[in-house]
C-alpha cells in the first residue's frame, strides 16, 4: 500500500525570472520503503522535499499521503499534520542551541502536550537505540557532528511519524560517522518499518536504500532497485550517475562515421 503518491507534480517559481523547478513528476513510495532521491545540483531535490514536507505548495498536480492531500488542509490542520505524521532530518542538524540533547529530542512531544510519563518512556527507548545516554544533558555545541545527527534522528523518530524526510543527512559528516548514521536509518527502516525519503547526492548514502530515484532538471530520469549486495547496487548507482552527470557521457554520438 503506497504511503506517498505524487502525481504529475509541477512547480514553477514565478518572479522576475520564471523557473520551472519540478516538471510533471510522478512516483509512489510504499509503506516501509527507504527511498533515496538523487540528482545533480539544481535538479529540484530540495524543492521536492519541501513540497512533501508541506512547507511549499506545488503549482499543479497532487500529493497524497495515506490518502490525504495535505495541501488541502486548513493551515492549523496542516501544522498538526506535519507535527504528527512527519519527521525531519536536516543536513546541518538544526538542533535548537538553547536546549539540551534530551530536550531537543522530546521537543515534538512537548509541543503536542503529551503526558510526562509517556515522554520519559519514549525518551528512554530512543536514547537506548541511538546510544545517546552519555550526552543527554549536553548542549548541541558540546557534542560531535555524528552525535548531533543522532540527536536529530531521535527528534525525528520520537513522535513515531509515518514518514521521515531526510535532506542530505550525511552532508556535514565524515565517512565513519556517515556510515553509522546511515546504518542507523537503515535499521530504523527495517525494524520499525518506518518509511524514509532521503535526498542525497552521495552515492554511498544512496546505496543503503531500497530504491533510488533519479531526477534531472526537475523531471523523472531513472530509478533502480536494491541488489542483494550493496557493492553491486553502489556500482549501478554510479553508472546511472555517470549517465546523468553531464553532457559528455550521456550525449556520445551513436553513429560514428568510418
Amino acid at each position: 500500500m503506497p504511503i506517498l503518491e505524487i502525481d504529475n507534480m509541477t512547480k514553477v517559481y514565478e518572479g522576475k525570472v520564471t523557473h520551472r523547478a519540478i516538471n510533471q513528476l510522478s512516483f509512489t513510495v510504499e509503506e516501509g520503503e527507504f527511498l533515496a532521491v538523487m540528482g545533480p545540483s539544481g535538479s529540484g531535490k530540495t524543492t521536492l522535499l519541501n513540497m512533501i514536507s508541506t512547507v511549499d505548495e506545488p503549482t499543479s498536480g497532487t500529493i497524497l499521503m495515506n490518502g490525504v492531500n495535505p495541501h488541502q488542509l486548513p493551515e492549523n490542520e496542516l501544522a498538526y499534520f506535519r507535527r504528527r505524521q512527519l519527521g525531519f532530518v536536516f543536513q546541518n542538524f538544526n538542533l535548537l542551541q538553547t536546549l539540551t540533547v534530551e530536550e531537543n529530542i522530546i521537543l515534538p512531544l512537548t509541543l503536542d502536550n503529551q503526558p510526562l510519563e509517556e515522554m520519559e518512556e519514549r525518551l528512554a527507548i530512543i536514547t537506548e537505540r541511538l546510544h545517546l545516554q552519555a550526552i543527554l544533558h549536553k548542549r548541541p555545541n558540546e557534542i560531535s557532528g555524528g552525535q548531533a545527527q543522532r540527536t536529530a534522528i531521535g527528534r525525528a523518530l520520537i513522535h513515531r511519524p509515518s514518514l521521515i524526510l531526510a535532506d542530505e543527512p550525511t552532508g556535514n559528516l565524515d565517512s565513519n560517522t556517515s556510515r553509522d548514521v546511515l546504518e542507523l536509518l537503515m535499521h530504523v527502516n527495517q525494524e520499525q518499518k518506518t518509511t524514509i525519503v532521503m535526498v542525497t547526492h552521495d552515492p554511498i548514502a544512496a546505496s543503503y536504500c531500497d530504491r533510488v530515484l533519479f531526477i534531472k532538471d526537475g523531471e523523472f530520469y531513472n530509478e533502480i532497485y536494491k541488489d542483494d549486495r550493496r557493492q553491486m547496487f553502489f556500482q549501478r548507482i554510479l553508472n546511472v550517475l555517470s549517465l546523468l552527470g553531464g553532457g559528455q557521457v550521456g550525449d556520445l554520438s551513436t553513429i560514428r562515421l568510418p
Partner: protein
Amino acid sequence: MTFRQFAYRNVFRNGRIYAAFFMASCFSVAVFFIYSMLMFHPNLGRGVLGEVSLVGMAGAEVILVLFTLFFLFYSMSAFLAARSREFGILLHLGMERRQLNRLVFIETMVIGIASIVIGIIFGFSFSKFFFMIVREMLYLEHLPLYLSWAPFLLTIGVFTSAFVIISYLSVSFSREYKVLDLLRGIDQIETSFQYSIKRAIKGVVYILVGYGLIIFTSYFTGYLALTIFVPLLITFGTYYFFSDTTLLLLAIVRRKRKINWRRFRLLAIAEQTHIMKNNAKMFFVVTMVSTLAFLSVGVLATMSSYTTQYNLINPMGLIYKGDANNPYEGEHIRSLTEQLEERGLSYHLTRFVVVKQTSSATKNEVEVLRESDINRLLYSYNYPMVNLQEGEAMFIPNTEEDLQILKDKVVHTVLEENDIAIQIDRVYPRVIFPKAVISVNSIILSDEDFEKLWYVTSDPTVAQPVYHLFTFDVSNWMETKDITLDVDPTAMLNKNSPYKLENAGLNYSYIVATYSLFTLVVLLVATVFLLASGSFIYFKLHAALERNQQQFAVLRRMGLTDSELKKLVNRYLFPQFFVPWGLALLHCTFAFAALQLFLKDLVNISIAKEVILAFSFLIMIQVIYFYLIRWRYIAHVRS
C-alpha cells in the same frame, strides 16, 4: 563607485534595517531640541521661574545629553552586532579593518546628520504644542513660539559631536572577532558564564535588606542616615539578581521535568536562560533606568498632590502672630492692611488673644481661644458658628485625622491657674487654622469663662503665655505673595523674634515654582528614560533576530501553527519586558511607601492616589510598548 558612495548606498538601500536606530536618534534629537527651545525661551529666563530654574533646566539638559550618549552608544553596538555577518563578508572579501572602521564612521554620520535634520524639523513643529502644554501647567499667560539661532545651534553642535564620539567609541570598543565568528553571527557564540549560588542568594538578600531598611528608617526617623545604604544595596542586589538569581531559578525549574517539559515552557525557559546569560548587564541597566524614571514620575505626582492639597491646608492669606508685648504690632498691622488695600485685595481681619493655661486632666499646656473671636473668623469663612455655654469648651482640630480622634472624646478638666472647671465634649467639625499656627492642644472657651482668665500659665518654660494672632482671610490668597513687612526678612527667623508672619501666597509661589521646574525636568527625563529602556530591549532583540529566525523556521517546519508561534513569542518577550520593569516598579513601590510614611509625619498628605495613578499610566505605556514591539518582532520572525 567610490568608498563613500558604497557607504551611502549601504545606508539608503538598507533603510529597513537602519530604521530602528534612525528613529531612536531622531527622537532623542527632537526631545533635546524641544527642551532647548524651552530653555532659551525669552519669557522664561527672567520671568516666573527665576535664575534657579534655568540652572535646573541646564542640569537636566546635561543629564539628558550624557544619557543620550550612552543610549545611542548602546543601540549602535547592538546594531553593529546584528550586522556582524555583513561585516564578516566584507572582511572576507579583503577589506581592511581600517576601512571597515571608516565605513562604520561614514554610515553613522550619514544616519546622524539625517536624524539631526529630521529631529529638529520634527521638534520645531511640535514646539508650539509643547509650549501650550507647559503654559497650562505653569499657569503662564502666554508662551509664544519664537525663532532664535541658539537652540538650533546647541542641538546641532551637541549631536554632531555625540555621533562623532559614538562612532569612534563603538568601533574602538568593539571586540575584534575572528572573521569566521563574524560570518556565523556573533550572537551564536556561547558565553561560558556560570552563575554562582552565593551571588544568587546575595542578590535576593541585598534587595530584601534594602527594602527592610527603607521601611525601618521611615518608622524610626532617627536612623534616617541609614538610607544612604539603600541605593547601594538595591543597585548591587539588582545586578546580582539579573546575573545570578534568575539563572539559578531557571536552572532549578529546568531540572524539574514535570514543570519544564510542558508545551512551550521547554522552549521559553531555555530561551530565557540564553538571554539572561548574555544580557544580564543590559537588564540591570534597564531596571535601574526605569527605576529612576518611575521614581521621578512618582515624585512629580507627589508634588502635584502637595500643591493641590496646599489650598486645603492653608485656607488663610496672611497670619501675623506676635507676643502680647510686641512693640511693632500696631505698625505692622497698619502696614499689612495698607499693602492689601493698595493691591485692591478684599480681606477680613480677625484679632485673637490666645491665652495659655494648664489642664488638670493632662497636666499639659493648652491654648485657649475666645468664642466670639473665632466666630468672627468663621463668619468670614461662611462656616457654621460656635455656640458655647458657661463651663463648656470645644476642641479645635489641627488636621482631618485629629477630627476623627477627637470626635467622640469627652474631657472634664480644670484650667488650673484660674480654677475654671470645664467640660470639653465637642470638636469643631472643620479644620480652621493651618498647621503649626496654634498648638495641637487648643480649645475654644465661651466668652463668659474667657473673661475669668486672669492668671496666665505659671509654667516658667513657656515663653509667651499670651499672644496675639491676626488672621487676614483673603479670598485671592495666591496674590498676596509680594506683601512683606518693611523689615529685614531674616529677623523673623530669629527664635526670639517677638512676631512672625505666615504668607500663604508667598509659600505657595515657592512651591509652584519648584513644582513647575521639577515638572519640566522630570517629564523630559522620564520620557527619555522610558523610551530608552524599551529601546534597549528592542535593539537586543534585533541583534538576536537572526538566531531566532532560524529557530522559528525549524519549529514551523516541525509543525508549529501560527497561533502557537504567537504564544511562543509572547513567552519569549514577556519576561524580557516585564521582569525589569516589574522589579523597577517594586523598587519604587517600596520607595514611595517609605515616602508616604515619612510625609505623613511631616505634612500629613496622602500620595497613594497620585502615585497609583502615575504607575498605572506607566504600566499602560509599557503594555502598549510591548504590543508594538511584539508586532514588529512577529513580522520579522515570520519572514
